[in-house]
Protein backbone atom coordinates (compact mmCIF):
# COMPACT_ATOMS: atom_id res chain seq x y z
CA UNK A 1 0.00 0.00 0.00
CA UNK A 2 1.17 3.53 -0.51
CA UNK A 3 0.02 7.06 -0.18
CA UNK A 4 -1.17 8.21 -3.56
CA UNK A 5 -2.51 11.67 -3.78
CA UNK A 6 -5.50 12.47 -5.89
CA UNK A 7 -4.41 13.45 -9.35
CA UNK A 8 -6.70 16.31 -9.99
CA UNK A 9 -6.72 20.06 -10.00
CA UNK A 10 -9.68 22.33 -10.37
CA UNK A 11 -9.20 26.00 -10.91
CA UNK A 12 -12.06 28.01 -9.48
CA UNK A 13 -11.32 30.76 -11.86
CA UNK A 14 -8.65 31.01 -14.50
CA UNK A 15 -5.28 32.00 -13.16
CA UNK A 16 -3.98 35.35 -14.23
CA UNK A 17 -0.44 35.89 -15.35
CA UNK A 18 1.86 36.05 -12.36
CA UNK A 19 4.57 38.62 -12.05
CA UNK A 20 7.99 37.17 -11.34
CA UNK A 21 10.96 39.13 -10.11
CA UNK A 22 13.22 36.11 -9.89
CA UNK A 23 15.84 35.76 -7.21
CA UNK A 24 16.66 39.36 -6.53
CA UNK A 25 18.49 40.31 -3.37
CA UNK A 26 16.21 41.87 -0.80
CA UNK A 27 17.34 45.41 -1.50
CA UNK A 28 16.96 45.03 -5.22
CA UNK A 29 13.56 43.46 -4.82
CA UNK A 30 12.40 46.45 -2.86
CA UNK A 31 13.73 48.69 -5.63
CA UNK A 32 11.88 46.67 -8.22
CA UNK A 33 8.64 47.23 -6.36
CA UNK A 34 9.36 50.92 -6.06
CA UNK A 35 9.09 51.02 -9.82
CA UNK A 36 5.55 49.71 -9.80
CA UNK A 37 3.20 52.07 -11.53
CA UNK A 38 0.53 52.08 -8.87
CA UNK A 39 -1.57 49.07 -8.06
CA UNK A 40 0.17 46.38 -6.01
CA UNK A 41 1.57 43.37 -7.83
CA UNK A 42 -0.80 40.44 -8.22
CA UNK A 43 1.62 37.95 -6.71
CA UNK A 44 1.89 39.52 -3.30
CA UNK A 45 1.26 37.27 -0.33
CA UNK A 46 0.04 38.00 3.17
CA UNK A 47 0.92 35.53 5.94
CA UNK A 48 -1.27 36.17 8.97
CA UNK A 49 0.09 34.81 12.26
CA UNK A 50 -2.23 34.54 15.24
CA UNK A 51 -0.54 34.56 18.64
CA UNK A 52 -3.34 32.48 20.09
CA UNK A 53 -4.47 32.89 23.67
CA UNK A 54 -3.82 36.59 24.19
CA UNK A 55 -0.14 37.52 24.07
CA UNK A 56 1.21 39.83 26.74
CA UNK A 57 2.12 42.80 24.58
CA UNK A 58 3.70 44.64 27.49
CA UNK A 59 6.39 41.99 27.93
CA UNK A 60 6.74 41.56 24.18
CA UNK A 61 7.24 45.20 23.22
CA UNK A 62 8.55 46.40 26.55
CA UNK A 63 8.28 49.99 27.84
CA UNK A 64 11.41 49.46 29.90
CA UNK A 65 12.08 53.14 30.52
CA UNK A 66 8.71 53.79 32.13
CA UNK A 67 8.92 53.46 35.96
CA UNK A 68 5.30 52.35 35.96
CA UNK A 69 6.35 49.17 34.14
CA UNK A 70 8.52 47.78 36.93
CA UNK A 71 6.07 49.02 39.52
CA UNK A 72 3.19 47.09 37.96
CA UNK A 73 5.23 43.94 37.49
CA UNK A 74 7.47 43.34 40.48
CA UNK A 75 8.37 39.78 39.44
CA UNK A 76 7.67 39.76 35.70
CA UNK A 77 9.31 43.00 34.63
CA UNK A 78 12.29 42.38 32.38
CA UNK A 79 15.36 44.36 33.31
CA UNK A 80 16.32 47.18 31.02
CA UNK A 81 19.72 45.64 30.38
CA UNK A 82 18.09 42.49 28.99
CA UNK A 83 15.63 44.23 26.68
CA UNK A 84 16.50 44.28 22.98
CA UNK A 85 16.44 48.03 22.33
CA UNK A 86 14.72 49.46 19.29
CA UNK A 87 16.95 52.26 18.03
CA UNK A 88 16.78 55.28 20.31
CA UNK A 89 13.26 54.60 21.52
CA UNK A 90 12.25 53.87 25.09
CA UNK A 91 10.73 50.51 24.22
CA UNK A 92 12.36 47.25 23.24
CA UNK A 93 11.70 43.62 22.46
CA UNK A 94 11.62 40.63 24.78
CA UNK A 95 15.13 39.17 25.07
CA UNK A 96 14.00 35.97 23.36
CA UNK A 97 13.21 37.81 20.14
CA UNK A 98 16.71 38.13 18.76
CA UNK A 99 15.74 36.99 15.28
CA UNK A 100 12.94 39.50 14.92
CA UNK A 101 15.14 42.19 16.43
CA UNK A 102 17.72 41.67 13.70
CA UNK A 103 15.09 42.16 11.02
CA UNK A 104 13.82 45.25 12.83
CA UNK A 105 17.33 46.66 12.77
CA UNK A 106 17.37 46.22 8.99
CA UNK A 107 14.13 48.18 8.66
CA UNK A 108 11.90 45.25 7.80
CA UNK A 109 9.67 45.16 10.90
CA UNK A 110 6.85 47.57 11.65
CA UNK A 111 5.44 47.53 15.17
CA UNK A 112 2.01 49.07 15.57
CA UNK A 113 1.45 50.06 19.17
CA UNK A 114 -1.73 49.90 21.18
CA UNK A 115 -3.91 48.08 18.65
CA UNK A 116 -7.50 47.39 19.64
CA UNK A 117 -11.08 48.60 19.35
CA UNK A 118 -13.55 50.36 21.64
CA UNK A 119 -15.04 48.41 24.54
CA UNK A 120 -12.70 45.44 24.53
CA UNK A 121 -14.15 41.96 24.88
CA UNK A 122 -12.03 39.75 27.14
CA UNK A 123 -13.46 36.40 26.10
CA UNK A 124 -11.00 34.56 23.86
CA UNK A 125 -13.73 33.43 21.51
CA UNK A 126 -15.62 36.69 21.26
CA UNK A 127 -12.39 38.65 20.83
CA UNK A 128 -11.21 36.26 18.13
CA UNK A 129 -14.51 36.60 16.31
CA UNK A 130 -14.16 40.38 16.44
CA UNK A 131 -10.69 40.30 14.91
CA UNK A 132 -11.62 37.56 12.46
CA UNK A 133 -14.71 39.31 11.14
CA UNK A 134 -13.24 42.81 11.55
CA UNK A 135 -16.49 43.75 13.21
CA UNK A 136 -16.87 44.48 16.92
CA UNK A 137 -20.46 45.37 16.10
CA UNK A 138 -21.37 42.12 14.36
CA UNK A 139 -18.85 39.39 15.21
CA UNK A 140 -21.39 36.65 14.50
CA UNK A 141 -21.45 37.32 10.79
CA UNK A 142 -20.50 34.25 8.76
CA UNK A 143 -17.53 35.60 6.83
CA UNK A 144 -14.10 36.86 7.78
CA UNK A 145 -12.03 39.78 6.57
CA UNK A 146 -9.55 37.58 4.71
CA UNK A 147 -12.25 35.39 3.19
CA UNK A 148 -14.08 38.45 1.88
CA UNK A 149 -10.81 39.70 0.46
CA UNK A 150 -10.14 36.44 -1.33
CA UNK A 151 -13.63 36.41 -2.81
CA UNK A 152 -13.00 39.86 -4.22
CA UNK A 153 -9.99 38.65 -6.18
CA UNK A 154 -10.34 38.62 -9.96
CA UNK A 155 -8.57 35.25 -10.07
CA UNK A 156 -8.91 32.59 -7.45
CA UNK A 157 -7.19 29.21 -7.23
CA UNK A 158 -7.65 26.41 -4.73
CA UNK A 159 -4.59 27.58 -2.83
CA UNK A 160 -5.17 31.33 -3.09
CA UNK A 161 -6.00 31.09 0.57
CA UNK A 162 -4.79 28.31 2.85
CA UNK A 163 -4.76 27.72 6.58
CA UNK A 164 -1.57 26.09 7.83
CA UNK A 165 -3.39 24.79 10.88
CA UNK A 166 -5.92 22.05 11.59
CA UNK A 167 -9.00 24.26 11.37
CA UNK A 168 -10.09 27.13 9.17
CA UNK A 169 -10.25 30.27 11.31
CA UNK A 170 -13.27 32.46 10.80
CA UNK A 171 -11.04 35.13 9.29
CA UNK A 172 -10.85 32.93 6.17
CA UNK A 173 -14.54 32.04 6.03
CA UNK A 174 -16.16 33.03 2.76
CA UNK A 175 -19.47 32.51 1.04
CA UNK A 176 -18.29 30.75 -2.10
CA UNK A 177 -14.76 29.69 -1.28
CA UNK A 178 -13.47 26.93 0.99
CA UNK A 179 -9.80 27.31 1.84
CA UNK A 180 -7.91 24.13 2.66
CA UNK A 181 -6.60 23.50 6.18
CA UNK A 182 -3.11 21.99 6.03
CA UNK A 183 -1.58 21.55 9.48
CA UNK A 184 1.34 19.58 8.09
CA UNK A 185 2.02 18.16 4.64
CA UNK A 186 3.15 14.61 5.39
CA UNK A 187 -0.34 13.23 6.03
CA UNK A 188 -2.10 15.59 3.63
CA UNK A 189 -2.97 12.79 1.22
CA UNK A 190 -5.86 10.73 -0.04
CA UNK A 191 -4.71 7.18 0.32
CA UNK A 192 -5.40 4.67 -2.44
CA UNK A 193 -4.01 1.23 -3.28
CA UNK A 194 -0.76 0.79 -5.19
CA UNK A 195 -2.43 -1.27 -7.90
CA UNK A 196 -2.82 1.19 -10.75
CA UNK A 197 -6.17 -0.12 -11.96
CA UNK A 198 -7.65 -0.15 -8.49
CA UNK A 199 -6.22 3.27 -7.75
CA UNK A 200 -7.74 4.74 -10.89
CA UNK A 201 -11.11 3.17 -10.09
CA UNK A 202 -11.10 4.56 -6.55
CA UNK A 203 -10.05 8.01 -7.71
CA UNK A 204 -12.81 8.04 -10.31
CA UNK A 205 -15.35 7.08 -7.67
CA UNK A 206 -14.07 9.72 -5.25
CA UNK A 207 -14.22 12.27 -8.05
CA UNK A 208 -17.85 11.39 -8.72
CA UNK A 209 -18.83 11.39 -5.05
CA UNK A 210 -17.13 14.66 -4.12
CA UNK A 211 -17.98 16.37 -7.39
CA UNK A 212 -21.71 15.66 -7.29
CA UNK A 213 -24.19 18.50 -7.51
CA UNK A 214 -25.01 20.31 -4.26
CA UNK A 215 -28.09 19.04 -2.51
CA UNK A 216 -29.25 22.37 -1.15
CA UNK A 217 -28.48 21.27 2.42
CA UNK A 218 -25.97 23.30 4.40
CA UNK A 219 -24.07 20.45 6.05
CA UNK A 220 -24.07 18.15 3.02
CA UNK A 221 -22.98 20.87 0.63
CA UNK A 222 -20.41 22.16 3.08
CA UNK A 223 -18.84 18.72 3.25
CA UNK A 224 -18.75 18.50 -0.53
CA UNK A 225 -17.05 21.90 -0.72
CA UNK A 226 -14.40 20.80 1.77
CA UNK A 227 -13.98 17.50 -0.07
CA UNK A 228 -13.41 19.33 -3.33
CA UNK A 229 -10.95 21.72 -1.70
CA UNK A 230 -9.08 18.70 -0.36
CA UNK A 231 -9.06 16.94 -3.73
CA UNK A 232 -7.85 20.04 -5.47
CA UNK A 233 -5.09 20.87 -3.04
CA UNK A 234 -3.40 17.57 -2.12
CA UNK A 235 -1.44 17.25 -5.32
CA UNK A 236 -0.26 20.85 -5.26
CA UNK A 237 0.78 20.65 -1.63
CA UNK A 238 2.79 17.48 -2.17
CA UNK A 239 4.36 18.87 -5.34
CA UNK A 240 5.27 22.13 -3.62
CA UNK A 241 6.89 20.31 -0.72
CA UNK A 242 8.82 18.02 -3.05
CA UNK A 243 9.93 20.84 -5.30
CA UNK A 244 11.53 23.19 -2.79
CA UNK A 245 14.06 22.08 -0.21
CA UNK A 246 14.90 25.28 1.58
CA UNK A 247 18.54 25.70 2.60
CA UNK A 248 17.28 27.35 5.80
CA UNK A 249 17.07 25.08 8.84
CA UNK A 250 13.66 25.75 10.37
CA UNK A 251 12.92 24.68 13.92
CA UNK A 252 11.14 21.38 14.52
CA UNK A 253 8.39 23.06 16.52
CA UNK A 254 4.90 23.41 15.03
CA UNK A 255 5.30 27.10 14.23
CA UNK A 256 8.67 26.62 12.57
CA UNK A 257 7.29 23.81 10.45
CA UNK A 258 4.20 25.84 9.52
CA UNK A 259 6.39 28.71 8.38
CA UNK A 260 8.50 26.28 6.40
CA UNK A 261 5.38 25.04 4.62
CA UNK A 262 4.38 28.66 3.99
CA UNK A 263 7.69 29.19 2.23
CA UNK A 264 7.25 26.07 0.15
CA UNK A 265 3.74 26.99 -0.97
CA UNK A 266 4.75 30.55 -1.82
CA UNK A 267 7.84 29.41 -3.69
CA UNK A 268 5.75 27.03 -5.79
CA UNK A 269 3.83 29.89 -7.42
CA UNK A 270 0.44 28.26 -6.94
CA UNK A 271 -1.42 31.53 -6.78
CA UNK A 272 -1.10 31.76 -3.00
CA UNK A 273 -2.21 35.16 -1.69
CA UNK A 274 -3.23 34.65 1.93
CA UNK A 275 -1.95 32.10 4.45
CA UNK A 276 -2.90 31.80 8.10
CA UNK A 277 -0.81 30.29 10.88
CA UNK A 278 -1.49 30.00 14.60
CA UNK A 279 1.00 29.79 17.45
CA UNK A 280 0.38 29.43 21.15
CA UNK A 281 -1.23 29.26 23.61
CA UNK A 282 -0.17 32.60 25.03
CA UNK A 283 -2.79 32.42 27.78
CA UNK A 284 -0.20 33.01 30.50
CA UNK A 285 -2.28 33.26 33.67
CA UNK A 286 0.53 31.55 35.59
CA UNK A 287 4.23 30.91 35.19
CA UNK A 288 4.39 33.53 32.46
CA UNK A 289 8.13 34.17 32.53
CA UNK A 290 9.04 30.67 31.41
CA UNK A 291 6.08 30.24 29.08
CA UNK A 292 6.52 33.53 27.28
CA UNK A 293 10.23 33.00 26.88
CA UNK A 294 9.63 29.69 25.11
CA UNK A 295 6.77 30.95 22.99
CA UNK A 296 8.52 34.10 21.84
CA UNK A 297 11.72 32.18 21.13
CA UNK A 298 9.81 29.87 18.79
CA UNK A 299 7.86 32.77 17.28
CA UNK A 300 10.90 34.94 16.63
CA UNK A 301 12.93 32.03 15.30
CA UNK A 302 10.13 30.97 12.96
CA UNK A 303 9.80 34.47 11.55
CA UNK A 304 13.56 34.82 11.24
CA UNK A 305 13.90 31.55 9.36
CA UNK A 306 10.98 32.38 7.10
CA UNK A 307 12.50 35.73 6.20
CA UNK A 308 15.87 34.12 5.54
CA UNK A 309 14.08 31.58 3.37
CA UNK A 310 12.24 34.35 1.53
CA UNK A 311 15.52 36.04 0.68
CA UNK A 312 17.36 32.91 -0.43
CA UNK A 313 14.29 31.60 -2.20
CA UNK A 314 13.77 34.81 -4.12
CA UNK A 315 10.30 35.66 -2.83
CA UNK A 316 11.12 38.22 -0.16
CA UNK A 317 9.65 41.05 -2.23
CA UNK A 318 6.34 39.19 -2.41
CA UNK A 319 5.60 38.54 1.27
CA UNK A 320 4.38 40.45 4.28
CA UNK A 321 3.75 38.77 7.61
CA UNK A 322 1.05 40.28 9.83
CA UNK A 323 1.06 39.23 13.49
CA UNK A 324 -1.88 39.73 15.84
CA UNK A 325 -3.38 38.47 19.08
CA UNK A 326 -6.96 38.60 20.31
CA UNK A 327 -6.03 40.77 23.29
CA UNK A 328 -3.05 41.75 25.40
CA UNK A 329 -2.80 41.23 29.14
CA UNK A 330 -3.58 43.46 32.09
CA UNK A 331 -0.89 45.90 33.13
CA UNK A 332 -0.45 44.51 36.64
CA UNK A 333 0.77 40.97 37.14
CA UNK A 334 -1.34 38.57 39.17
CA UNK A 335 -0.45 36.50 42.22
CA UNK A 336 0.35 33.40 40.13
CA UNK A 337 3.32 34.76 38.31
CA UNK A 338 1.16 35.52 35.32
CA UNK A 339 -1.09 38.12 33.78
CA UNK A 340 -4.81 38.07 33.07
CA UNK A 341 -6.85 38.98 30.02
CA UNK A 342 -6.34 42.59 29.02
CA UNK A 343 -7.01 44.82 26.06
CA UNK A 344 -4.82 46.40 23.43
CA UNK A 345 -1.61 44.81 22.18
CA UNK A 346 0.95 45.50 19.47
CA UNK A 347 0.72 44.13 15.94
CA UNK A 348 3.80 43.31 13.87
CA UNK A 349 4.30 43.54 10.15
CA UNK A 350 7.42 41.95 8.71
CA UNK A 351 8.63 42.05 5.13
CA UNK A 352 10.80 43.70 2.54
CA UNK A 353 8.01 46.04 1.57
CA UNK A 354 7.22 47.12 5.11
CA UNK A 355 8.03 50.59 6.41
CA UNK A 356 9.96 49.55 9.50
CA UNK A 357 9.85 51.22 12.87
CA UNK A 358 7.31 52.04 15.53
CA UNK A 359 3.86 53.19 14.45
CA UNK A 360 1.29 54.77 16.72
CA UNK A 361 1.70 55.73 20.34
CA UNK A 362 2.52 53.24 23.08
CA UNK A 363 -0.45 53.29 25.50
CA UNK A 364 0.03 54.90 28.88
CA UNK A 365 0.77 52.52 31.76
CA UNK A 366 -0.91 54.84 34.24
CA UNK A 367 -3.92 56.26 32.39
CA UNK A 368 -5.74 52.96 32.36
CA UNK A 369 -9.25 51.70 31.70
CA UNK A 370 -10.05 49.48 34.69
CA UNK A 371 -6.50 48.26 34.86
CA UNK A 372 -6.16 47.80 31.11
CA UNK A 373 -4.31 49.70 28.43
CA UNK A 374 -6.32 52.11 26.36
CA UNK A 375 -6.08 51.48 22.65
CA UNK A 376 -4.30 54.00 20.46
CA UNK A 377 -4.79 52.38 17.04
CA UNK A 378 -7.96 50.75 15.73
CA UNK A 379 -7.14 47.32 14.27
CA UNK A 380 -9.29 48.04 11.25
CA UNK A 381 -6.87 50.78 10.23
CA UNK A 382 -4.13 48.14 10.09
CA UNK A 383 -6.40 45.78 8.16
CA UNK A 384 -7.29 48.56 5.71
CA UNK A 385 -3.61 49.30 5.13
CA UNK A 386 -2.80 45.67 4.47
CA UNK A 387 -5.80 45.09 2.23
CA UNK A 388 -5.44 48.24 0.17
CA UNK A 389 -1.74 49.01 0.17
CA UNK A 390 -0.28 45.51 0.14
CA UNK A 391 -2.85 43.23 -1.47
CA UNK A 392 -4.53 45.85 -3.63
CA UNK A 393 -8.05 45.07 -2.50
CA UNK A 394 -10.81 47.62 -1.96
CA UNK A 395 -10.53 47.88 1.81
CA UNK A 396 -13.71 49.90 2.29
CA UNK A 397 -15.84 47.24 0.64
CA UNK A 398 -14.23 44.35 2.50
CA UNK A 399 -14.33 46.07 5.88
CA UNK A 400 -17.74 47.63 5.37
CA UNK A 401 -16.49 51.10 6.19
CA UNK A 402 -13.65 53.54 5.78
CA UNK A 403 -10.71 53.35 8.14
CA UNK A 404 -7.70 55.62 8.16
CA UNK A 405 -4.80 53.70 6.72
CA UNK A 406 -1.37 53.78 8.33
CA UNK A 407 1.88 54.33 6.40
CA UNK A 408 2.98 50.75 6.93
CA UNK A 409 4.45 50.05 3.51
CA UNK A 410 7.43 51.60 1.78
Amino acid at each position, binding site marked *: *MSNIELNRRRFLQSMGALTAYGSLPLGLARHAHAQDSGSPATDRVLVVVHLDGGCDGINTVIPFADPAYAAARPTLAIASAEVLKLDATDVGLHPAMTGLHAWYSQGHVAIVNGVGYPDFNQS*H*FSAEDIYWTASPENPNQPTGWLGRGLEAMPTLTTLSGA*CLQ*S*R*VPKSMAAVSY*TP*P*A*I*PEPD*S*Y*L*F*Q*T*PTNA*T*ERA*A*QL*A*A*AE*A*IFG*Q*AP*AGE*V*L*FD*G*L*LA*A*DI*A*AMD*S*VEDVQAAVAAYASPVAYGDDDFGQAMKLAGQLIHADLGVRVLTVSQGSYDTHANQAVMLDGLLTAFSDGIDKFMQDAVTGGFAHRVTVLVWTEFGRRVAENASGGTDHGSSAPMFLIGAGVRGGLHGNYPSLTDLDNGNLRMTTDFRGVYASVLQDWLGYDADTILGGTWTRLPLFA
Partner: protein
Amino acid sequence: MEYGIGLYQRLRMPLTSQTLRALSAALSTMGQVPLNPPDVAGYPEGLEWAGTSNLLSRYNGAYTVAYTLSSTQVSQLLASIDVSRAETLLDGLLYQLGPIELGDASHAALLAYLQSGGYSGRNTARVHTKARGALHLIAATPEYQLN
Protein backbone atom coordinates in the same frame (compact mmCIF):
# COMPACT_ATOMS: atom_id res chain seq x y z
CA MET B 1 -14.57 9.38 18.20
CA GLU B 2 -17.90 8.12 16.91
CA TYR B 3 -16.46 7.87 13.41
CA GLY B 4 -13.45 5.84 14.51
CA ILE B 5 -15.08 3.56 17.06
CA GLY B 6 -18.15 3.21 14.88
CA LEU B 7 -16.13 1.99 11.94
CA TYR B 8 -14.51 -0.73 14.02
CA GLN B 9 -17.82 -1.79 15.52
CA ARG B 10 -19.66 -1.85 12.22
CA LEU B 11 -16.92 -3.94 10.64
CA ARG B 12 -17.03 -6.29 13.63
CA MET B 13 -13.34 -5.69 14.34
CA PRO B 14 -12.17 -6.36 17.89
CA LEU B 15 -11.06 -3.28 19.81
CA THR B 16 -7.65 -4.47 20.93
CA SER B 17 -5.00 -2.33 22.59
CA GLN B 18 -3.26 -2.16 19.22
CA THR B 19 -6.34 -0.91 17.38
CA LEU B 20 -7.09 1.57 20.16
CA ARG B 21 -3.58 3.01 19.86
CA ALA B 22 -3.99 3.29 16.11
CA LEU B 23 -7.38 4.90 16.59
CA SER B 24 -5.98 7.36 19.11
CA ALA B 25 -3.32 8.47 16.66
CA ALA B 26 -5.90 8.90 13.92
CA LEU B 27 -8.21 10.89 16.18
CA SER B 28 -5.43 13.35 16.98
CA THR B 29 -5.07 14.23 13.30
CA MET B 30 -8.83 14.64 13.10
CA GLY B 31 -8.65 17.21 15.87
CA GLN B 32 -10.76 15.02 18.13
CA VAL B 33 -8.44 13.72 20.82
CA PRO B 34 -10.61 12.11 23.52
CA LEU B 35 -10.98 14.30 26.61
CA ASN B 36 -8.68 16.92 25.06
CA PRO B 37 -10.70 19.35 22.93
CA PRO B 38 -8.74 21.79 20.77
CA ASP B 39 -9.63 24.71 23.03
CA VAL B 40 -11.66 25.50 26.11
CA ALA B 41 -14.77 26.00 23.98
CA GLY B 42 -14.82 22.22 23.51
CA TYR B 43 -15.03 20.24 20.31
CA PRO B 44 -16.06 22.12 17.16
CA GLU B 45 -19.66 21.80 16.08
CA GLY B 46 -21.50 22.13 12.79
CA LEU B 47 -19.01 22.18 9.94
CA GLU B 48 -16.17 23.68 11.96
CA TRP B 49 -14.55 20.27 12.32
CA ALA B 50 -14.79 19.57 8.60
CA GLY B 51 -11.57 21.14 7.41
CA THR B 52 -9.81 19.49 4.52
CA SER B 53 -7.13 17.92 6.70
CA ASN B 54 -9.66 16.53 9.16
CA LEU B 55 -11.66 14.98 6.35
CA LEU B 56 -8.58 13.49 4.73
CA SER B 57 -7.60 12.05 8.11
CA ARG B 58 -11.00 10.41 8.35
CA TYR B 59 -10.78 8.96 4.87
CA ASN B 60 -7.21 7.78 5.38
CA GLY B 61 -8.23 6.24 8.69
CA ALA B 62 -11.01 4.35 6.93
CA TYR B 63 -8.54 3.27 4.26
CA THR B 64 -6.20 1.89 6.91
CA VAL B 65 -9.03 -0.02 8.55
CA ALA B 66 -10.33 -1.42 5.25
CA TYR B 67 -6.93 -2.54 4.05
CA THR B 68 -5.70 -3.99 7.31
CA LEU B 69 -8.65 -6.32 7.69
CA SER B 70 -7.44 -9.87 7.39
CA SER B 71 -8.86 -12.07 4.68
CA THR B 72 -10.67 -14.00 7.36
CA GLN B 73 -12.23 -10.83 8.73
CA VAL B 74 -13.40 -9.82 5.26
CA SER B 75 -14.90 -13.26 4.76
CA GLN B 76 -16.71 -12.96 8.07
CA LEU B 77 -17.96 -9.52 7.15
CA LEU B 78 -19.30 -10.78 3.83
CA ALA B 79 -20.76 -13.99 5.22
CA SER B 80 -24.22 -12.50 5.58
CA ILE B 81 -24.09 -10.52 2.33
CA ASP B 82 -25.19 -11.70 -1.09
CA VAL B 83 -22.03 -11.06 -3.09
CA SER B 84 -23.28 -12.59 -6.34
CA ARG B 85 -23.86 -9.14 -7.88
CA ALA B 86 -22.23 -5.76 -7.35
CA GLU B 87 -25.62 -4.26 -6.47
CA THR B 88 -26.26 -6.70 -3.63
CA LEU B 89 -22.69 -6.42 -2.35
CA LEU B 90 -23.11 -2.65 -2.16
CA ASP B 91 -26.47 -2.95 -0.43
CA GLY B 92 -24.99 -5.34 2.09
CA LEU B 93 -21.99 -3.16 2.87
CA LEU B 94 -24.22 -0.10 3.25
CA TYR B 95 -26.39 -2.02 5.69
CA GLN B 96 -23.34 -3.24 7.58
CA LEU B 97 -21.91 0.25 7.92
CA GLY B 98 -25.08 1.92 9.05
CA PRO B 99 -27.45 1.35 7.53
CA ILE B 100 -26.42 4.16 5.24
CA GLU B 101 -28.82 5.65 2.74
CA LEU B 102 -26.89 7.06 -0.17
CA GLY B 103 -28.09 9.68 -2.60
CA ASP B 104 -28.25 8.77 -6.26
CA ALA B 105 -24.87 10.28 -7.15
CA SER B 106 -22.91 8.56 -4.39
CA HIS B 107 -24.71 5.27 -5.03
CA ALA B 108 -23.98 5.41 -8.74
CA ALA B 109 -20.32 6.23 -8.11
CA LEU B 110 -19.90 3.29 -5.75
CA LEU B 111 -21.68 0.90 -8.07
CA ALA B 112 -19.50 2.02 -10.96
CA TYR B 113 -16.44 1.40 -8.80
CA LEU B 114 -17.56 -2.14 -7.93
CA GLN B 115 -18.30 -2.90 -11.57
CA SER B 116 -15.13 -1.36 -12.96
CA GLY B 117 -12.98 -4.00 -14.63
CA GLY B 118 -15.83 -6.48 -14.46
CA TYR B 119 -17.47 -7.91 -11.35
CA SER B 120 -17.73 -11.61 -10.59
CA GLY B 121 -19.21 -12.85 -7.34
CA ARG B 122 -17.47 -16.19 -7.86
CA ASN B 123 -14.01 -14.65 -7.76
CA THR B 124 -13.40 -14.41 -4.02
CA ALA B 125 -10.15 -12.47 -4.28
CA ARG B 126 -11.79 -9.88 -6.51
CA VAL B 127 -14.83 -9.61 -4.25
CA HIS B 128 -12.52 -8.98 -1.30
CA THR B 129 -10.56 -6.33 -3.21
CA LYS B 130 -13.72 -4.53 -4.21
CA ALA B 131 -15.25 -4.85 -0.75
CA ARG B 132 -12.20 -3.20 0.84
CA GLY B 133 -12.27 -0.39 -1.69
CA ALA B 134 -16.01 0.10 -1.26
CA LEU B 135 -15.66 0.27 2.52
CA HIS B 136 -13.07 3.01 2.11
CA LEU B 137 -15.23 4.94 -0.33
CA ILE B 138 -18.48 4.56 1.62
CA ALA B 139 -16.72 5.97 4.68
CA ALA B 140 -15.70 8.95 2.54
CA THR B 141 -19.21 9.85 1.39
CA PRO B 142 -20.92 12.90 2.84
CA GLU B 143 -23.84 10.64 3.69
CA TYR B 144 -21.60 8.58 5.98
CA GLN B 145 -20.18 11.68 7.69
CA LEU B 146 -23.69 12.90 8.46
CA ASN B 147 -25.17 9.53 9.38
